[in-house]
């Protein structure tokens, strides 16, 4: 047994340890990485830029804290862009663990918009958070009929009819589009129910893992834009000119990817050496 064969039989715990070490080191040391912008991200940015102040946007925060690290940068950059432009934002959170987190994000963004642009964002006039109801598919269908059906009141149990910005806002017909940021399969409900049944323009921000699977919907026009994972968020941050966590995270990605590729190569070299000798791995 030579060096490479022994390497290819390496205990998985070494893989874990080396990976963890690379992540920690790259998190702690700073250096720059270049970023490319894809058209499917740009189309979301352009859509947001085209909206007139006072238009309504439905922002669906359907991820839960598990994918917070990956999804929060998108929520932050898009919601900051919307509120800074004076768009009115209707927010929902259709993941059972999500509402607490979404509320926290909303409050933080309201503060940061005020800090950066001096613009006071008023809850109930510029933004409303409807909260969570179980069974996302059903809620999405119901909102297409009337927001009041699944959400008689907002997250704080204020009746929708007594919230100023919801006056005359019945259902998806009254919003310019839905920007969905999600890490769950709820995106299928949005596509087949909200876009499919009610024809509302839909753009999605997905976890990196999911994004690849929604290109068919992009091509068939069921969604008009797509952001995938941290890379998508970094692209958006670059477009919006608000460098944030996503752009920082890219340098970690580059190095960890190289480590994993290295492991794959080691595994294959060991495999070929032992196969040439007639051994088995």
């Amino acid at each position, binding site marked *: 047994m030579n060096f490479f064969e022994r390497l290819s039989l390496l205990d998985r715990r070494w893989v874990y340890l080396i990976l963890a070490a690379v992540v920690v080191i790259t998190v702690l040391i700073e250096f720059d990485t270049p970023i490319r912008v894809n058209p499917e991200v740009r189309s979301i940015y352009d859509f947001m830029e085209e909206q007139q102040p006072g238009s309504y946007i439905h922002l669906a925060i359907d991820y839960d804290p598990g994918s917070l690290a*990956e999804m929060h940068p998108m929520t932050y950059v898009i919601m900051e862009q919307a509120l800074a432009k004076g768009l009115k934002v209707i927010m929902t959170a259709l993941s059972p663990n999500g509402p607490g987190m979404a509320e926290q994000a909303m409050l933080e963004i309201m503060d940061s918009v005020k800090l950066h642009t001096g613009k006071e964002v008023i809850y109930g006039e510029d933004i409303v958070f409807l909260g969570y109801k179980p069974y996302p598919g059903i809620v999405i269908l119901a909102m297409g009929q009337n927001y009041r059906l699944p959400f*008689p*009141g907002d997250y704080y149990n204020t009746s929708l009819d007594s919230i100023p910005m919801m006056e005359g806002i019945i259902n998806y017909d009254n919003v310019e589009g839905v920007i969905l940021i999600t890490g769950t399969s709820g995106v299928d409900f949005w596509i087949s129910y909200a876009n499919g049944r009610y024809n509302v323009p839909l753009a999605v921000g997905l976890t990196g*893992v999911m994004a690849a699977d929604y290109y*068919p919907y992009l*091509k068939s026009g069921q969604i008009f834009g797509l952001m995938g994972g941290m890379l998508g968020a970094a692209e958006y941050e670059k477009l919006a000119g608000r460098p944030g966590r996503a752009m920082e995270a890219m340098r970690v990605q580059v190095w960890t990817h190289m480590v994993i590729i290295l492991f794959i190569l080691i595994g294959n070299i060991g495999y070929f050496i032992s196969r040439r000798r007639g051994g088995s791995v």
Partner: protein
Amino acid sequence: MRKGPIIITAAVALFFVISWIIKSGGAPEGSSSYDAIAEGFWLTFAAFLTLAILSFLYKDNPFYKFAEHLYVGVSAAYWMSLGFWTTLVANLFPRISMTLSEWFQVEFISYQYHFWVPPILGVLLLMRLSPKGGWLSRWALAFIVGTTAGLNLPRFLRSDFIEQISSTMLPILVNWQGFGDFFTNFSLSASGQFVSIVSNFLVVLGVLCGIIYFFFSKEHKGAFGAASRFGIWVLMVTFGASFGYTVMGRISLLVGRLTFLLDDWLGIISG
């Protein structure tokens, strides 16, 4: 009990108690010392749970078992409470009972008698717990399974079938301007006519061969077999690509957790 585990447990406990004490010191101004101690506790506890789960990578151990069982218990109850307040209290009670609405201090809407159906079906479901009435629970199950099967039948036929077929009907020439134009403006660039032709053709071919791979009642031999093999190749390219594409998202989740440990808890990273 052997001494080893006791010593390890004690050491870990001591470590986190020290962390608690240190974390309780950095209270923001204006808050009471009680708040600071509580916040210090919560932060330390969260860090402990994070490390307990990560320790699973080395091997199963008592800390992981503790965190796992706590998580299962707390999450089950969390969902239950949330469901109770957001659904029963907010949606059901204001429509069936004035007394219950008053009790839970929600605004009574109006009597809507069809809202008695779900609690009745719900109670039927609970009949499982009685030794004799178990069969009644099937009525509720039948209702749920039946409605959802019926709900999905046309809807998935539309979104997963007809709409996918219709978007597969791609033209071979993206901008039909005749063959002369095609040859005079021939280019190999990614946005060029030639690449789009090849791509469109491959999409259609890939879809067809992929579907052929899923034929169950015909032997995969001859030309049919070749198509099916091409189909599985396309599937494998896709699976590899999805895997490679995903690595990034997974790493960023880990970065999120490390940021919590290094920044929020240990305070190593600043800004």
